[in-house]
């Protein structure tokens, strides 16, 4: 089978990601191992062909939609390669970047590993592992995301309130640079000296360069990560395929909590929901009882989001199993707790009942999921929101092909969130657009989504996003907490970094990729483009 194939109609499905950003490509490759990946990258280097890495194609910013050249599809690099136990007893799993999160979860839950090709040490490390004993915490809502894609944009998802983002769970990685050379980096071992970097290469060479002079946002950010004395693995995590192509990841596993439970509470108004969230996060308003427990995830659904799902339920048989909403609902907050003892739940629920009441909710108007099966009902509900957006955008796109998903994931710190939330609402309410707000309120990055129906609405949506990017920049936040800037939010990245810092980032890229072949059109605004724009 030929590695580099002509892009033909049968591969049309590889031209766009979940955001529905239509890309184009002349070639496509499906490497199955690092050697083939290197071969594909070298072929590009030889021929001056640009390339875009693809994993599960579940991104929401167009990062995997190719912009000409080669679509480098890593879906066939989906093996689990080995297991290591470190001195502290933690498990580290080596995987190829195309492995899907759902495959990883199944393997860990059922202890189902194809160990052909594993070394002895890995097999010995696997021996005592019990099914379901360990898990990989990052939980982007879409379980068919690939681990490589999650690393490339430092995905985080709902449970990062408790566990942090993908970055926090990667202990080592291998990456292929634009010239086909390979680097192998381990957290704690390979670090910058101040802002100077000596990046070791497998062929014995070293890439010597200086990091940009600034630090990237201190809050959750899906983009580049720059710090003094940083771990070099973090250069690649979040760089969205612009510095190198991740060819292998070592994931740090965590002991799986034994008891997952959650509840959705309905509130008469957004302000009640915000008060509830503040209390859950440990900052209760006066008069609201303190809640000393840590949630694993806190998710918000505004009225428009709930209405949208209710409408879609009438049309889509797959949503038939969605729970009927309580009468007179307005907005809802889902909170999940990860614990080890089911006996902890009732006293916590008693405390929550107090918090819900004090926040203006009603403990009778709640859904409690007490075990895995019930939790799946709540997660199904949560997942139905982006699924519905997908269905609607797919439909709208038939009438106006330029339309893509317009979802933001801007993040600010606790002190600025309410202000940002009110800006979102005010700006959207002033339009005639269809919009919803839902998502990760626990980490101050909800997803306002604009469901554009026409080209004008689509452009209006982009304009609003740009305004918000300036607002968020002013608050010291990030324009993308988890999805990455990709192509759709590239302009927002420029607003956040500003032209000066953008130039420094482009210089960093040129160290790795002098001919700018990797991930064209993603994140970075190159000077010439800026001038031309």
């Amino acid at each position, binding site marked *: 089978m030929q590695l580099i194939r002509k892009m033909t109609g049968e591969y049309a499905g590889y031209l766009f990601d979940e955001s529905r950003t239509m890309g184009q490509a002349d070639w496509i490759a499906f490497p199955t191992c690092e050697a083939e990946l290197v071969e594909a990258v070298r072929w590009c280097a030889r021929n001056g062909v640009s390339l875009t890495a693809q994993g599960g194609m579940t991104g929401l910013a167009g990062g995997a939609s190719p912009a000409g050249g080669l679509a480098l599809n890593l879906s066939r690099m989906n093996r689990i390669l080995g297991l290591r136990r470190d001195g502290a007893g933690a498990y580290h799993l080596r995987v190829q970047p195309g492995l899907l999160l759902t495959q990883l979860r199944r393997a860990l839950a059922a202890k189902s590993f194809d160990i052909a090709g594993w070394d002895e040490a890995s097999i010995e490390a696997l021996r005592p592992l019990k*099914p379901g004993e360990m898990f990989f915490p990052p939980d982007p809502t879409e379980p068919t995301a690939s681990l490589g894609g999650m690393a490339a944009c430092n995905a985080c998802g709902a449970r990062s309130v408790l566990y942090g983002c993908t970055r926090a769970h990667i202990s080592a990685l291998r990456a292929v640079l634009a010239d086909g050379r390979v680097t192998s980096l381990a957290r704690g071992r390979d670090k910058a000296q101040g802002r100077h970097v000596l990046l070791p290469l497998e062929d014995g060479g070293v890439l010597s360069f200086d990091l940009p002079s600034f630090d990237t946002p201190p809050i959750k950010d899906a983009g580049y990560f720059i710090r003094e004395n940083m771990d070099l693995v973090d250069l690649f995590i979040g760089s969205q395929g612009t510095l190198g192509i991740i060819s292998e990841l070592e994931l740090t596993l965590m002991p799986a909590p034994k008891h997952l439970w959650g509840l959705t*509470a309905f509130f008469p108004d957004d302000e009640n929901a915000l008060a509830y969230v503040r209390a859950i996060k440990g900052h209760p308003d006066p008069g609201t009882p303190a809640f000393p427990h840590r949630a694993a995830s806190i998710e918000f659904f505004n009225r428009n989001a709930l209405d949208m799902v209710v409408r879609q339920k009438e049309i889509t048989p797959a949503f038939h199993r969605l729970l009927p909403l309580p009468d007179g609902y307005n907005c809802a907050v889902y909170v999940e707790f990860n614990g080890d003892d089911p006996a902890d739940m009732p006293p916590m629920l008693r405390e929550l009942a107090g918090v819900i009441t004090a926040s203006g909710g009603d403990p009778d108007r709640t*859904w409690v999921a007490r075990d895995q099966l019930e939790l799946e009902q709540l997660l199904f509900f949560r997942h139905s929101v982006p699924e519905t957006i997908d269905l609607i955008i797919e439909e709208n796109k038939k009438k106006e092909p330029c339309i893509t998903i317009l979802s933001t994931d801007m993040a600010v710190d606790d002190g600025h969130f309410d202000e940002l939330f009110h800006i979102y609402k005010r700006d959207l309410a002033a339009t005639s657009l269809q919009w919803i707000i839902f998502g990760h309120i626990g980490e101050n990055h909800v997803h306002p989504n604009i469901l554009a129906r026409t080209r004008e609405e689509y452009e209006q949506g982009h304009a609003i996003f740009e305004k918000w990017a300036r607002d968020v920049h002013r608050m010291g936040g990030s324009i993308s907490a988890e999805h990455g800037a990709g192509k759709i939010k590239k302009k927002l990245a420029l607003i956040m970094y500003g032209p000066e810092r953008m130039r420094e980032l482009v210089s960093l890229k040129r160290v790795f990729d002098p001919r700018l072949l990797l991930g064209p059109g993603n994140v970075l605004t190159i000077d010439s483009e800026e001038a031309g724009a």
Partner: protein
Amino acid sequence: MKILVCVKQVPASNETRLDPVTHTIIREGAEAVLNPFDAFAVEEAVRIKSRCGGSVTAISMGIPAAAAMLRRVIAVGADEAILLTDRAFAGADTLATARTLARAVEKAGLPDLILCGRMATDGDTAQVGPMLAENLGIPHVSDVAAIESVDDSVLVARRLTDDGYARVRVRLPALVTVLREINVPRLPSVSGVLRGEACGVTVWDRAALGLDPAETGLKGSATRVVRTMRPDLSVQTVAIGGRPGEQAARLIECLRARKLIETEGRA
């Protein structure tokens, strides 16, 4: 109207696999949950109660820890719960289970309506409901997709048959087993869960039911498992590789050669 609903605790997953290192069978870290089919029976019971008034009693045979599951049933609207638990009940087949349940139902007082899930996901036999009805001497209607109407004396149901659906009217008391499509079970509210936690579960053992040890559990079972084995799955497999287009073409060729399809399309 007095309604009784039979529930069972089952493992959340039945998946069994071979350990990749030791090649021994491992059961997935099995959380115990309410049998999913029973959730539909519970929901239907609670809905009928809210329409017709009356009470809902949940009953289960299982290990002492199943009391937690019964409290969950109370959380979504059942009024009381009975747990039948005794070492002497262990290893019961469907016949012995139904016998034990029937004795407990008689002790609790025959209700107007008994609701059961279609089957339990750990056994997939769908036998206990009809057997229980027989032991109680009441009629049963299996595989009910909708309860169209019910009052103190008569119930009209739509049941799944081999040829479609049938509408039937049955005199009460009767037992009904329900399908998934009958409803969407609610989740409990915070208040409901706290009510369940505060609620006691009645526990009856073998002696309380006045059953002879020879009538219950393994001793009271008519069937025995004599052997288990992993099925042999080996088949000669032809792998069809290539790009999707090539794969489709080759497959059409193969199927045509085996006279499995008759299309004339390009291969």
